[in-house]
C-alpha cells in the first residue's frame, strides 16, 4: 500500500519535469493532467477521498480542458529558443537546485522521518466535509461563489470579439 505512494510520487515528479521541459504547449498541458491525476491518487492514499475525486472532476476535467481549448484556439506552436542572454540558464539551474535543497533541509529538520506519530483516523467522508463546509465555513463558501460569478463575467467581457 505504501509503495503506491512512492510510485505515484515519482510519476508526479517526472510529469512535472515534463511540463516544464516540453517545447509544445499541448504536451505540457497533457503532462500537467498526468500530474493532477497522480496527485489525486496520492490524496486518496492520504485519506482524502472526496478531495481526490473533486480534483479529477474540477481540476483535471474542467480547468485543464479550458487550458487545452485555449491552446488549440490560439494554435500555440513550438516555442522558439530565447534570443536574450544565456546567463539566466547557467546561473539559474544551480540556484533552483540550491533552493530545492534548502527547502528539503528545512522540512527534514522540522519533521525527521522517524518521529511521526501514527496518523490519527480521519473521517473524511463527504458528509463530514459537507457539515464543516456549511456550518463553520459558510461565509467563505458564499464569498467564493460570488468570486466565481465575477470571474465568469470578467471572462465573457474580456474575451468577447469587438464587432
Amino acid at each position, binding site marked *: 500500500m505504501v509503495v503506491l505512494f512512492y510510485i505515484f510520487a515519482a510519476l508526479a515528479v517526472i510529469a512535472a519535469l515534463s*511540463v516544464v521541459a516540453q517545447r509544445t504547449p499541448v504536451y505540457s498541458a497533457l503532462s500537467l493532467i498526468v500530474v493532477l491525476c497522480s496527485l489525486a491518487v*496520492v490524496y486518496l492514499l492520504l485519506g482524502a477521498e472526496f478531495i481526490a475525486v473533486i480534483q479529477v472532476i*474540477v*481540476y483535471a476535467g474542467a480547468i485543464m480542458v479550458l487550458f487545452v481549448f485555449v491552446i488549440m484556439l490560439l494554435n500555440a506552436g513550438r516555442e522558439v529558443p530565447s534570443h536574450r542572454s544565456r546567463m539566466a540558464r547557467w546561473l539559474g539551474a544551480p540556484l533552483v537546485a540550491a533552493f*530545492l535543497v534548502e527547502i528539503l533541509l528545512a*522540512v527534514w529538520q522540522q519533521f525527521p522521518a522517524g518521529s511521526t506519530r501514527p*496518523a490519527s483516523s480521519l473521517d473524511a467522508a463527504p458528509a463530514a466535509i459537507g457539515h464543516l463546509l456549511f456550518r463553520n465555513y459558510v461565509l467563505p463558501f458564499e464569498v467564493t461563489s460570488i468570486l*466565481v460569478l465575477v470571474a465568469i463575467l470578467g471572462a465573457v467581457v474580456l*474575451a468577447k470579439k469587438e464587432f
Partner: protein
Amino acid sequence: MVPLAHVLALSATLFVIGAAGFVFRKNIITVFMCIELMLNAVNLAFIGFSRYLGNLDGQLFVFFVIVVAAAEATVGLAIIIALYRNRNTLNIEDLDSMKM
C-alpha cells in the same frame, strides 16, 4: 504509513519545479500552467497536514484553493486571448511593454 516528511518533500519538489518553469519558460500559457503546478504542490502540503493532525480543515482549504484556481484560470486565459488578439504573440519577451 507515509511519513509526513516524505509528503512535504514531494510537495516541495513539485513547487520548486513549478517555480523554475515559471521563471524560465517563454510561452505565456506554459508559465500559467507552472502556476497551477505550484498551487497543486501547496494543496498536497495541506492534505498531508490534514492527515497528520487529524483535522479536516486542511481538506476544506484545498476545496477552496481548487475553486479559486478555477476562477483565476478563467480570467487569466481570457486575458491571454485578449492579449493574443492585440499583439499576436504568446512570447513573454515580446509582451514586455504596455505601449501598443
